[in-house]
């Protein structure tokens, strides 16, 4: 019998998902089944689900770009292959950022974290939605680039798509780092007036 510790207690107050964030929540639920936002007892699970989805999307993007890299190398288009390699490196860095990002600890009382409020939840849900949208766009770009390469289109266009994909991944990484700042904000105790 295998069982795992599940210690997800974040505070004494029950926090509900804000109504303003519902459209984003619905959007996320379309991608992540079972995503319920950062409600009590679900915060770590939600964080893990979002990060897993980001890694999955990034790996999909990487697979497309890898195919472009191999095809370009075989065809002797070394500049395109090098662009693809650079894009792969950016994706690897993004995956590392996501998989090694801090997600807070379970015991908020002991860690000095303050209780998550509706405003925090709203910001985090919206942020999750936007990051996943960005990475999905990068995946779509990689997919389009591979399709164009397969249909013998102009290699310059393919390279441009790969570069746009890399730019999107870099933006996603930058945007994702904002999430750490939000979580850091939760760690700061309320200032006494």
């Amino acid at each position, binding site marked *: *019998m295998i*069982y*795992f510790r599940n210690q997800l207690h974040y505070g004494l107050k029950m926090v509900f998902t804000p109504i303003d964030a519902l459209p984003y929540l619905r959007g996320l639920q379309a991608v992540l089944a079972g995503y319920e936002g950062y409600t009590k007892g679900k915060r770590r699970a939600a964080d893990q689900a979002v990060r897993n989805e980001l890694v999955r999307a990034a*790996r999909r993007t990487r697979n497309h770009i890898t195919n472009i*890299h*191999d095809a370009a*190398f075989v065809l002797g288009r*070394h500049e395109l292959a090098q662009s693809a*390699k650079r894009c792969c490196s950016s994706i690897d860095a993004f*995956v590392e950022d996501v998989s090694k990002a801090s997600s807070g600890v379970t015991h908020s009382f002991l860690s000095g974290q303050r209780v998550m409020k509706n405003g925090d939840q709203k910001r985090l849900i919206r942020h999750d939605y936007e990051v996943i949208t960005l990475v999905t766009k990068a995946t779509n770009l990689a997919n389009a680039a591979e399709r164009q390469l397969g249909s013998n289109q102009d290699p310059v266009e393919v390279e441009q798509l790969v570069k746009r994909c890399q730019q999107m991944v870099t933006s996603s990484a930058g945007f994702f780092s904002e999430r750490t700042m939000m979580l850091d904000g939760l760690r700061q105790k309320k200032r006494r007036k």
Partner: protein
Amino acid sequence: MAQTYKWRNTPDILARIIDGNEITTWRSQRVTLKPNEACMFIINGQLSPVFSDQNINQIGGGFPRFLASILKATAVDRRVVFGMTGPFDLAVPFSTQSQSGLKFQGHVRMRLQLMKEDLPKVLNYFVNHSPVLTRTSLARLLYEHVNQRLIASTFSACTDETSFRDEAFQSHFAMKAEMLLRPQLASLGLTLLGAYLVPQRTSLETVNLHRSNQTHALEQERINAEVTQHAISLRQSTALRQIECEVEVARAKIRGDQTLEAEAALTSLRRLEAVLRSEDERKIRLNLEKERSHSIRMKAAMEMFQLVQESKRSRESTN
């Protein structure tokens, strides 16, 4: 109270599969998975999800499990696969020869990563190899593939010993490695993040290095000789100057000595003159005294003679 199970006791270990039924301790074993570690269970041949970044309280052992095994309430086959999901470096040595007969040696440095989602693929390794995947065993596994598929084809077209050091060659090699090694690595669940070639010195480079070293040594010798010559000339001029100074000093000293001797002689002469003068004065005084006493005695004698004459004349007159 559970005991902590350590699946990785050296940094060389990348993955490990353990048989949960072989853990027969009375205390149950638990493991804490860090963010760069992942774990997966195979229960009766079925794969569980991959876990990471959490505590797993019971991976084996303990009295309840022992009791359950007696009652046949546990799984018959229970294995746990652990993996390190952080990037790691791997060096695979190579040795090859180009078509023109040039020999190349060195190693291929690869940066690999076992993604968390790819942990089940590591089972492909454990099917035919030991239950511990280390860097060494992985390098040994990839040795032939790297040498025959990648290195041989890369260096076969290499005509000179200078082209494989430039950026274009390395870039081309990285792309080729990416393409040729991916199927092999993907079957083991590994992702190739980057690869580059680290060749050892070739014979031509050794000769060039020797030439450069000798030229450098010669130049160094020349500089040393120049410095030594300069030092010798400086020392010579210093010695000459020192000799001149010593001569001058000696001369001055001699001059000084002569002066002193002359002064001493003069002093002695003066002293002698004074002695002589005083002796002369003494003699003169003595002579004067003698003359004075003689004159006094003469005067007294003359007076006495006159007295005698007068008395004589008076006596004669009386007679």
